[in-house]
């Protein structure tokens, strides 16, 4: 049996590994545009020169050899023939499959701001190539502008900052990481960034990019008149799923991306999907789990994806870690509990005995329990304990095989 996996990121690599785990004999071919296996989440470490390419590799050592997976690297898939069960590559090659796992991920989306799509030195931060170019260009430039203060945008800022580039971060909201952090937690980072020379333009949208004669950026003009001088722009405002190769194949997609069910199945019984290519729940662990689920189902073993909970994030900038789970901004009727001491900030929002969100900055020890409680909306009202001290001890339970459960 031959299994083909498209994509060498979280979903692709883990899916392939899972297939191998279940079936020691099957033939597995992994096809990826990427020439290297690398973690897209730490490209900023590459930019700042903390890691080289091989150090971005999140897969097991000698992954392909070890797990006996054939890798067609640097190959684009241009089409799928679901009747003949073949994928067509950009070099003309066709690869047949018994079952196919689509894990082609997503690519940066550059919004239609004047000149943004046409100018030189405007990059997303999604692929290694982006990172390579940014790193290269950073040698020649003085100032950079980053649009979008989500995780990717802030990652880009740290990468550039380490290289000594002056950075200005432009964001529509009033603070960085508006989806993950509250004002207090963001401010802490903003203060630290400012100390390192980073500037912020909040509540701002990009209006147009001014370029020079060589089509290099000169300044980003914001709505409202402000002008941010810059020699390079990094756009971190969103991604679009890589599904163009599925046009006309009959495989179901929608405006977000590839459509799959909770078993990773598409509308084609031999085609499965996982990860960012679905456009949904775009966080790493979900990509991995979806791939694991899909792989199991591909091999006939029933497994259901039961955890779509994706509002959970951690970050670690300038040695200050933060964890954000669920809703960190209170709504009416919510009870907010805050605990602050010596640089550690903890906030838990709960209502009617259920924790809705948690924000921890500084000390994340043992906090995984909160993720579970928030995700499952567990009732903690009977636990007579300081909410910040609730841990797994209050739910302790062992399965027969020694695993924990709830």
């Amino acid at each position, binding site marked *: 049996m031959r299994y083909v996996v498209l994509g060498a990121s979280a979903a692709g690599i883990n899916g392939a590994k899972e297939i191998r785990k279940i079936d020691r004999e099957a033939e597995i071919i992994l096809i990826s545009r990427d020439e290297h296996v690398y973690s897209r989440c730490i490209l900023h470490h590459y930019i700042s020169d903390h890691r080289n390419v091989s150090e971005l590799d999140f897969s097991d050592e000698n992954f392909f050899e070890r797990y006996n997976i054939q890798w067609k690297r640097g190959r684009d898939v241009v089409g799928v023939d679901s009747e003949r069960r073949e994928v067509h590559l950009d070099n003309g090659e066709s690869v047949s499959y018994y079952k196919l796992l689509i894990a082609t991920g997503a690519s940066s989306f550059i919004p239609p701001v004047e000149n943004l799509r046409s100018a030189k030195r405007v990059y997303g931060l999604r692929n290694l190539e982006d990172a390579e170019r940014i790193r290269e260009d950073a040698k020649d430039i003085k100032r950079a502008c980053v649009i979008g203060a989500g995780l990717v945008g802030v990652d880009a800022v740290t990468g550039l900052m380490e290289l000594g580039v002056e950075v200005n971060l432009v964001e529509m909201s009033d603070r960085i990481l508006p989806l993950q952090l509250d004002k207090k937690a963001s401010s802490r980072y903003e203060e630290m960034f400012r100390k390192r020379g980073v500037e912020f333009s909040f509540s701002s949208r990009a209006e147009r990019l001014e370029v020079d004669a060589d089509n290099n950026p000169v300044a980003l003009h914001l709505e409202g008149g402000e002008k941010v001088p810059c020699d390079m722009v990094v756009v971190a405002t969103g991604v679009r799923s890589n599904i163009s190769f599925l046009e006309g194949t009959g495989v179901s997609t929608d405006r977000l991306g590839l459509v799959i069910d909770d078993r990773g199945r598409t509308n084609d019984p031999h085609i499965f999907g996982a990860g960012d290519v679905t456009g949904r729940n775009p966080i790493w662990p979900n990509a991995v789990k979806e791939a694991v689920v899909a792989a199991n189902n591909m091999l006939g073993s029933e497994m259901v994806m039961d955890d779509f909970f994706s509002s959970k994030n951690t970050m670690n900038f300038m040695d200050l870690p933060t964890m954000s789970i669920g809703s960190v901004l209170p709504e009416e009727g919510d009870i907010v509990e805050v605990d*602050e001491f010596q640089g550690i900030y903890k906030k838990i929002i709960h209502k009617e005995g259920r924790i809705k969100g948690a924000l921890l900055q500084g000390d994340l020890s043992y906090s995984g329990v909160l993720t579970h409680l928030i995700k499952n909306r567990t009732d903690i009202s009977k636990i007579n304990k300081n909410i910040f001290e609730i841990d797994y001890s209050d739910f302790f339970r062992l399965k027969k095989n020694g695993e924990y459960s709830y």
Partner: protein
Amino acid sequence: MPMCQSADKKLENFIKECSCETSFKRVVDQKVKCGFGLQGVCCRLCSNGPCRITPKSPKGVCGADAHTIVARNFLRNIAAGSACYLHVIETTANNLKSLGEKREKIKGENALEELCEIFGIHEGDKHEKAVKVADAVLADLYKPRNQKMELVEKMAYAPRYKKWEELGILPGGAKSEVFDALVKTSTNLNSDPVDMLMHSLNLGISTGLYGLTLTNLLNDVMLGEPVIRKAPVGFKVVNEEYINIMITGHQHSVFSHLQDRLIDADVTEMAKAAGAKGIRLVGCTCVGQDLQLRGEHYQEVFVGHAGNNFISEAFLQTGAVDVILSEFNCTLPGIEPIAEEFKVKQICLDDVAKKSNAEFMKYSTDDKESISEAIIKEAISAYSERRGEISINIPKDHGHDDVITGVSEKSLKAFLGNTWQPLIDLIASGKIKGVVGVVGCSNLTAKGHDIFTVELTKELIKRDILVLSAGCSSGGLENVGLMSPGAASLAGDNLRAVCENLGIPPVLNFGPCLAIGRLEIVATELAEALGIDIPQLPLALSAPQWLEEQALADGAFGLALGLPLHLGLPPFVTGSEIVVDVLTNSLKEITGGQLIVEEDILKSADIMEDIILDRRRALGL
């Protein structure tokens, strides 16, 4: 920051804002407590150890089982606690002796007369008598173990003395009894838990009669007898316009010279020259309560009692304390970094209480004048150097102005018309159901800081039970207002009526933990008046938040007296069924006393109320 709660919410909020760490935070860090230690079944005496009792290893290497190990640990703790109180009475007696020899002022002449009466000292003028009283005490303390102490029979209630004699627990020389208890509890020596428990009772007797009772009575002579009066308490008592010295310890007589010197005109002038109005003492721990108890005689120099031991770290962070002057416990090691941070000068008068960064000025009666001068000098220089550098933040709403203090067995009896009859009548009629002494330390582990103490007290007074208190628990009760007359509104109908009638609160403040001895004199005198022995009184004792070894020694005295003694947390003895059974059960047949461990506040109140009701029934009330 995670921290434990306090019954005193204002204190709790103040601590939340404090910049330096306190015990309130560390108690959370230390929340995982070793089960072996809690049960008392860990032994660390020798290099074959440490040994722990478990199902697979039910004996130490030497063969000691759980009972031996628990009893050894327990007796050693009690020996140390007894030693602490005996150290206090030894210092006190030495100070009295010196006062007599140097013919200094006797502030409590009546008290001296009464002591001479009890001791049988008739010859000499008052100063010579004072010397003889002191010598009698010291002679007893220094007897060898095979010579019974002579004052025991004079001090103890006769039926109790007889019982102790039958049981063979009358103490020989107190210091030697402690000494041999220390020997007994070493490796491959004593392994008999019952012998060790009896020795514990023996140590309890010397602790109670000498460490507690005699210290109070000798202090009465030197420092003035307690007089019932109103006094302010809490953080509000401290005034930043003065140079403030916070005192910690239990040996009030060590401050006799200083407390008078501080208000001399020339000293006040020196303070004014530095920009302050004068120098004042602020109370903390039991010595503060002792000053408060005798506050009638120190109205100028003593501004009031700020609170109990566990408020000391927070209190220093008001910035208003210029000097910490210690001579005993509780002087928390936790104050050291705070004193550094707030530039507070630390001075230690007795090396048993030496803090790492304190200046040691060894107190002796010969040096007391020069020591007072040195302290005054340090205080003024600390004030001058630090006030510009630190900020003052005194929560002026913390505390109360109208705490009733100065209660002793004498002042209370005098208040009732020089007889216990009114109290006996109130008890007989049921207006007061009974009496409970809620005494001893403050800790952070029985529900939180003073929480058990305060809630238990509220429960008891709701049930018309009069509460007498002494020790750091008093420090907690008075700071939440339970020792002010207004607290009567929290009492049950009967008790409230009594209180409002007499103008007293339902919780009476006897002062320092030493005064537990005074409380026990009240019990003795009531028993005597009723012609019964102590185990028959409608009275119980609770040390809900006992903290230290001294508290255990105190408790041993209560048990020797035949009192039911409640604790809110078990001592580290639960690893031995024999020890637990003797203390909580068979002791009733031995001394009449009983240890009751109950960690639930309501159940504790129920149990004590039941005991009181039982005894009322037995007395036909």
